[in-house]
Structures are given as C-alpha cells and as structure tokens.
C-alpha cells in the first residue's frame, strides 16, 4: 500500500521532497520545472519594477507565488505521455497568465501614468476576447479572473479576505463566491488602474449584476454592458446578439480612437477555429483507454484558451498540437497512461476552485480517472472566416455557450446533458458538484437524482463553496467522495494515506 501523504508536511501541504516517478519521468519533470522557472524569469524581466510594486500593492497578486506548487499538485501521479501532455498544456497556461499579469502591471496607472495603459480593453468576468480581434493595436485584458479564479487555483487563502470585505459592508453573504470576491476586490480598491475602457456583461445571476455595479463605481474608465442572450438555442435572439456585438465594437472605436480592421479580425478567427478543432481531437483520445489527456490540466487548458485567447495567443495552438502528437503516439502504441484507473468519471457543475486538483486526488487515492468535465463543453463554436455578420454572430454563440452560461443558465436541459457526455466518454461514474451558493444549479438537484435512478447510473454529489474553503474544506470534499467510494462503489483506496489528511493551512 502506497503512503504518498508521508511526503507532505501536515497542515501546509508543502512537500518535503518532490515525487519520485522513476528515473526517466522524474528527470523529465525536473526539466519542465526548469522551463517553468524560465517562464517566470521572462515574466519578471518584462517590467521588474512595476511587477515588484504590484506584488507588494495587491494582496491577490501574492497568491500567484503558489504557481509551481499548483503545477506539482495537478501533475501528481502522472507518468509517461500523460505527464508530457500535462506539462505542455501547463506551460501555455503559465505563459498566458504571466503575460496578462505583466500587462496589468505595465499598464497600471497607480505606478505612474503611461501610454501603455490605453492599449488594453478590459473585459469583465468571462467576456469573450474575440470581440477585440479587429483591433490589432489593442489587447484584451481580463478584470476579475486574475484577481479571483486563477489566483484561487494557486492559493485557497486569496479570496476569503475579499469576500469578508464584501460581507462586512452588508452585502449578502449567500451570493456566488466568484461575484463576492470580485465585489470585495472592488471595494478594497484592488483592481489595477489599467485600460482604455471596460466591457462588462450581463452575467447570469443576481450577485454578478451586483459586482458589476460595484466595479463600475470604482473603475475610472468608460464602461459599457454587453447584453448577451441567455437562451442561446432560441434563434429569435440572434438579431439581438449581433446588434450587441456591433455596439461593443463601436464602443471600443469611440473610446480608443482605433478603427475596426476586418483583415486582422479574420486572422484571429482562423486561429480561434484551430483552437476549437484541436479540442475536438483531444476529446477523441479522451474517450479511449489509451488517452494521454485526463484529470485536471486538459480541462483547465480548455477553460483557459476559451476565456483568454479566442485565437489571440498563438502559442495555444502550438501547445495543443504538440500535446496531440504525444497523444497520437501513445494511442498508436496502445500505451495506457492512466494505469491505476478502475473507474472513469465525468464531473459536472461548479467545482471548488480552491481544490483545483480534486481530479488528480481522485485518481491517486481511488483510481478514478476523470477524462471529461463540464467546462470542456463551453464555447467550441466554429466561427465564419469570411462573412463579418456571421462571424460576429459566431462570437456571440461561442460566448452564449460559455462557462456558467451554456449549462447553468442556458436552459435546464443543458445541465442534464451530463448523461449523454458520460456515455460518449465511457464513464461509469458521474460526479455533480453542489456549489452551495450557485442557485442556478441547485434548483435541479432533484431532477438529476431522479434521472440517475432512472438511468441506473452511479451518481455522487460533492459539496463545495467555490472560492471559500472555510465553509467546506478540501478534506470535507474528500470525505464526501470517499464515503461514496466505500459505501456505494465498495472500493478500497489505492492509497489509504490520501483518504483523510490535513492541508487546511496550505496554498
């Protein structure tokens, strides 16, 4: 029986030493660690003074020092082709994230007025980056995601500070943690003062509307709201969606003085389509027992490029193709990369972002491989490469099918797509996250339970509080899942030491 947990300090979850994966894979992992250090060095070199100032100015920035730890957590237990695809995809995520962080600091007016500040169009929450594609002199830069979601993946202690600020001024404590964190960052004046303008959007819930209002009060640049239809299957909403896209483009033109460039726009759309086609190929491998894609990094890679790239980050396509080559070779050689897998499970609903490596843990502790999760099915729309109106509508469609929209507010039937996807990805288990502050998903719990009974499927619910580990800790999530594995699946853990352990104080 393995005793992996001995490798970590109690409480902090910091490893005493890194994982031994056999000589070849450990040496490979070491080399990828060196590559990651190189990416971080490039990041620091972009604007050392402003980046250091940012690190000391913004509490959320401090969460990013857990980046290397997060990589270790997400690649735990991986060997061979699975380790390789994970690192390839992770490098692209790191490159993109550090690039956006550097841009935020380079353009931050808090550290001195700079022309660079006006080169960015700020996008609130998951607003689609494709909308900036027709402006080659401008760059899309996310607001909120850097200060919340991405940071929480690295440090579970990042968001609670901001959520407490939000609650201390009397705002509702039962609102979505993503919005609560975004509102707290705004109230604490912790958003960088960067950008020529800000595009907010009608995110799908009441708490999100609340944080948009608070952000607007604190941000000193012109803002507009992109109202994107929720009921994306209804064709009658298309005209409205297209008009909204055009309004946003006009707003960018008016506030930046830049003109929309069709040629540049279609170039990015071609790149967007490449990213989507790569994803479809990944799925084909993920459906097989010889997949090199699984656990957490592959879905994370998808969510990353959907939210931030949209065709504008050329290294995303390169990384995806490199990973696909590894996967193709593994498939041809019938290499079983996840040899501990006893079950295949799809995960659905809003995950606990402070437990980003839940899938990795489920694999190492219980031999449960996750080849697919809900976020992978966000976006994935092929956009026209030659007709402007069609392309703009394509962007709207891609966004309407996006994270938190497609399944949670796009009509109840889409949340129930889980059974079809489980079938396609050959999963014998379904995990649905009960995100306790997401009212959209909660309303369907009974229907999901009934359908599981009708379909005779193994369904497990795991509660989480999205950004707040104090309410439902990582160990509590592990306990709920382990209880199901023992009581219902009648399984013994592969590694007893991973069932119950303390990492509450950790990153």
């Amino acid at each position, binding site marked *: 029986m393995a005793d992996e947990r001995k490798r970590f300090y109690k409480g902090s979850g910091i490893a005493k030493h890194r994982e031994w994966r056999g000589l070849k894979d450990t040496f490979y992992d070491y080399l990828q660690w060196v590559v990651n250090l190189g990416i971080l060095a490039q990041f620091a070199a972009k604007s050392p003074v402003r980046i250091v100032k940012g690190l000391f100015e913004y509490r959320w920035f401090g969460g990013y020092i*857990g980046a290397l730890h997060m990589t270790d957590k997400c690649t735990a237990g991986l060997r061979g082709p699975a380790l390789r695809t994970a690192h390839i995809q992770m490098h692209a995520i790191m490159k993109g994230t550090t690039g956006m962080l550097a841009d935020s600091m380079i353009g931050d007016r808090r550290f001195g007025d700079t022309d660079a500040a006006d080169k960015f169009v700020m996008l609130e929450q998951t607003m689609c980056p494709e909308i900036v594609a027709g402006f080659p002199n401008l760059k899309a830069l996310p607001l909120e995601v850097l200060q919340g979601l991405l940071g929480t993946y690295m440090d579970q202690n990042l968001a609670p500070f901001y959520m407490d600020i939000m609650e*201390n001024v009397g705002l509702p404590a039962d609102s979505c943690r993503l919005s609560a964190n975004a509102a707290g960052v705004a109230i604490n004046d912790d958003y960088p003062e960067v950008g020529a303008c800000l595009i907010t959007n009608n995110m799908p819930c009441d708490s999100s509307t609340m944080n948009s209002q608070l952000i607007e009060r604190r941000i000193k640049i012109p803002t507009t709201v992109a109202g994107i239809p929720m009921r994306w299957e209804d064709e009658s909403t298309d005209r409205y969606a297209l008009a909204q896209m055009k309004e946003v483009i006009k707003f960018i033109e008016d506030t930046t003085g830049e003109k929309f460039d069709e040629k540049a726009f279609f170039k990015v759309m071609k790149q967007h389509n490449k990213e989507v086609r790569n994803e479809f190929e990944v799925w084909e491998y993920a459906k097989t027992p010889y997949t090199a894609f699984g656990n957490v990094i592959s879905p994370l890679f998808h969510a990353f490029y959907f939210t931030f790239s949209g065709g504008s980050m050329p290294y995303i396509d390169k990384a995806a193709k490199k990973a696909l080559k590894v996967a193709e070779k593994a498939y041809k050689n019938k290499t079983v990369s996840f040899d501990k897998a006893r079950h295949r499970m799809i995960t659905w609903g809003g995950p606990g972002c402070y437990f980003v490596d839940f899938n990795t843990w489920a694999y190492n502790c219980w031999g449960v491989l996750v080849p697919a999760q809900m976020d992978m099915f966000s976006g994935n729309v092929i956009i026209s490469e030659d007709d402007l109106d069609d392309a703009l509508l394509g962007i709207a469609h891609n966004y309407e099918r996006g994270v938190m929209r497609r399944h949670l507010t796009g009509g109840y039937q889409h949340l129930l797509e889980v059974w079809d996807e489980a079938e396609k990805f050959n999963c014998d288990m379904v995990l649905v996250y009960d995100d306790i502050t997401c009212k959209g998903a909660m309303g369907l719990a009974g229907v999901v339970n009934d359908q599981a009974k009708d379909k005779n499927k193994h369904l497990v619910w795991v509660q989480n509080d999205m950004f707040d580990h104090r309410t439902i800790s990582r160990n509590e999530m592990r306990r709920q899942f382990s209880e199901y594995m023992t009581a219902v699946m009648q399984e013994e853990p592969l590694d007893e030491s991973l069932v119950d352990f303390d990492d509450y104080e950790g990153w």
Partner: protein
Amino acid sequence: MKKKLLIGALSVVPLSMLIYWFNLDNKLLYYGVRPILNKVYNSYQRNVSL
C-alpha cells in the same frame, strides 16, 4: 577566471536538481516569502466604504 566560470556553470545543474528534489523553491516561498507579503498586506489601511 575561465576555470571558475566553468565550475560555476557546471554547478548550476546539480544545485538546481537539489532545489527541485527537496522542493526548496516552494518551501522558501511558503515559509519565507508568504509571511512577509502577508505582513505588508495587513499593514495597509484602505477605504472600504461603499
């Protein structure tokens, strides 16, 4: 001088391997840098009224 440079360059690899294997990077960041950053952040007074 050249010899010193060569020795310096050659020792980078085993040194980095040691840092990697004993997870010294994360230990330094978690137990060293993080508490300092938290002290700095906690010292700030911000206007948090709506």
